């Protein structure tokens, strides 16, 4: 019992980590059991990334880790030493919305807005890899992000519109 309690105390001792979040170098201290989702929300004040299940089932917490879409509820904060994390807060450039954000806003892709951050980050990863995805590819890419409001139609349309806007800009 004493040994177990001792181990527990050790587990609670904060760890210190350096990583890049939305292009900014940050240093953060947190208990080692915390997921990246908890570290982002509770220790870095980035509440844009959402809890939906904490089990990797809903996609609401999707962020980009070194450019790859990851479910932040399944990644330990500890695993992110030295890595680069992008969240919804990093999408807009100053007051200018990212083309995905603008398309989501204009085309009704965000209703309650709760799945939106995860949806945006997943879509960003797709468009970085495939600037001109087919509708089918878009549907595949976001199939791990659940939305209960939209029936997905306006989300898919917004991603298509953003892809067009980004190609024209490029």
């Amino acid at each position, binding site marked *: 019992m004493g040994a177990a309690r001792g181990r527990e105390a050790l587990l609670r001792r904060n760890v210190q980590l350096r990583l890049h979040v939305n292009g900014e170098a940050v240093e953060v201290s947190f208990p080692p059991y915390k997921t990246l989702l908890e570290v982002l929300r509770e220790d870095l004040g980035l509440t844009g990334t959402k809890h939906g299940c904490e089990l990797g089932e809903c996609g609401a917490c999707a962020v980009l880790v070194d450019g790859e879409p990851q479910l932040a509820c399944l990644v330990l904060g500890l695993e992110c030493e030295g890595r680069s994390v992008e969240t919804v807060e990093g999408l807009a450039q100053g007051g200018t919305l990212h083309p995905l954000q603008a398309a989501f806003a204009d*085309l009704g892709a965000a209703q309650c807005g709760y799945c939106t951050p995860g949806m945006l980050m997943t879509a960003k990863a797709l468009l970085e890899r495939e600037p001109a995805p087919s509708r089918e590819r878009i549907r595949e890419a976001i199939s791990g992000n659940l939305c209960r409001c939209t029936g997905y139609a306006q989300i898919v349309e917004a991603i298509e519109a953003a892809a067009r806007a980004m190609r024209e800009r490029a």
Partner: protein
Amino acid sequence: MNVIGKPRRRVDARSKVTGRTRFADDLALPRMAHCRLLRSPHPHAEILAVDVSRAAALSGVYLVLTGEAFPVSFGIMPVSQDEYPLARGKVRYVGDPVAAVVARDEQTCAEALAEIEVKYRPLATIASPAEALATPEPRIHDYGPQGNIHRLQAYEFGDVEEALARADHVFEDVFFYEGNTHLAIEQHAALAAPEGEGGVVLYSSTQNPHYLHRQLARVLQLPASKVRVVAMPNGGGFGGKCDPANHEMVVAKAALALGRPVKICLNREEVFYLHRGRHPVLMRLRTGVTKDGRLTGVHLQTLLDGGAYGSHGPASTFYTGVLTPTTYELPRFKFEACRVFTNKPPCGPKRGHGTPQPRFGQEVQLDKIAEKLGLDPAELRLRIAVKPDSLTANWLRIGSTGLAECIRQVVERSGWKEKFRKLPEGRGVGLACSAYMCGAGLPIYWNKLPHSGVQLLADRSGQVTAFCGATEVGQGSDDVLAAIVAEVLGIAPDDVRLVTGDTGLTPVDLGSYSSRVTVMMGNAALRAAEQLKARIAAAAAEELGVAPHRVAFANGRVSVAGEPSKAMAFREAVELAEARFGTLAATGSYTPPKPAGKYKGAGVGPSPAYSYSACVVEVEVDRASGWISVPKIWIAHDIGRVVNPVLARGQVVGSVYMGLAEALMEEQAFRRLPPKLSDALVHRIPSILEYKSPTSLDMPEVETILVEEPDPNCPFGAKEVGQGPLLPVPPALANAIYDAVGVRIDELPITPDKVLRALELKAQGKNPRIGPEAFPAVPYPKPVFVPPPWEGGDGGEAKRHDAAAVV
């Protein structure tokens, strides 16, 4: 019009796409403590003892609460206040909250929960309506008409047996609609903090801050003026955040006791237990028709599996009956409804509240009727569609209806006439219709007060602020408020600052339920804006040297109508008005029209207006696997007037999605553990992975047609769009499957295994139908008898009924 009807980015869009919108779970306050609940592992048990001493002694634990801390019960409906924040004496479902720990962090809470010892004495579990009817003892609750029956309702509008006797055909069917859950992606969260002298503020993911406010004051035994509820934007509601919830009461109590903020976030498993979702409903429908397809009478019986508590149950029970006559001309109507208690998470309101189930039954039965009579199902429905400006058999007042136009639209767009009964084997189309209310005509508790209030402030800066208790749950409540105020004042929706859903700051609005917000908040907003406009116009008229009625408001300018050069900025006009009248404020409030019916129970069903929908679903059924694919759905919805087409289409497609989900896969299902593991009734699948819902890959193309049949009771004629379009989808799917492979699946969800079994029956030459075989004997009382409007009477009762008919 400059705003209404124009496609726009919604006013809260930028916050939502930048992650700036703050949901309840995103809030944090200095000195905030955390809370978690201990939940019952038993479906039905007596609590013999709770020992919290070890938990309370843990380092970092600030408070442990049990049922003793909460002597007062609560419940959304005055007639069913049967819940306690923490169980007292017994638990009624797996997940029923028993104790709460408040500690420095969630981890410490979890450790402390494990140290709480509860001694239970398990009681027999009531698992189903059949068991509830057959097992009066033990009673899950000690109220209700008898045994484990929660509510009985019986109404007859004209002699239905006589109507069936003179029909050319009588159709009798039994249908079953499985329960399912809201599955909002946001899990419920609440943060309470002490406020002022002995008061408390609760920030919560609630759809109904006003009702929560009342229940919280009741449970905390505080004057309501000491309690403030702030509804944060909901990350999806769908009815799942309508009930006041245990955890909201617990953190409010804890915050007052500790003098510091306390926060709780439910996890996904807990949300499945809190539930309040779609009631499983078994129904029997007997319908008399003439040979040309006119209805002579309908006798509907329903049996609802209510789960462990009352919730909205009394209203849900009514809704399985009362809206049935709003879609088609029906001279006589009888409904008998019964809700039973079972040891499962309580059922309550989910999108469509109590009406998708009978709608499924009636629309599938109409498909059978059309086939028997050799009529096209669309033609049959056009023939009997309810007429505008009419009364139904149960005295509901229908205003505008675009039902016939909706049917014509989906028939034409889908190529119905070229497809119905003409597609190759394995492919088919099905059609169904529906109606839905635009707001409940009566509040949940009896009062003569307005249902919605809006207050506007304007000042010399040119800013306009709208205050309203309405709640943004994703449906666009904020956008409708801004749009209506902006339209009247000739400014942009983005120029209206919004303060909503805060019982400490905003006029009362009853909440985001029953599709009431656009009509009720909208009418209140319209009145307030007209009042403010009149003041500004009076001041501007003086300056412009014309009569006030000649002053026009548009594009941020106030001008002489027809003379755009004689104009000033809106801001200048407000300044003139402030100088002339002093501080500028205006209010508007709205109360729905009185119901036409006068009988006891006539208050459920009336609405200022009804929306209408028609839907065609196309399916492909794989005969080898039973797999159902849906290539396309066409839906037309009579919305009265479109406020913002971007949002309106989103509501329609979202409703189609949810209807299709319920039709094809979603079920809140339970199983018994083996006897050696306690024999308990447990949720089969309290996780998103196992509770199957459609992904982006499962959604078909949806073609949306918005039909505008403005209703005089509605602001700019605008009716509801958030719930109605769900209703026709499940029956249209079932009818399409029949068209495709000739089998009838009379129960939801329609899964491949059921299709396969039906196909096997068909191959064996048996009745190719899957569905409930019988309807049990339910002790319905002698009904309340009310003559329909065309048979004399004044909307009151004409015969004596059993007192139990309206409990």
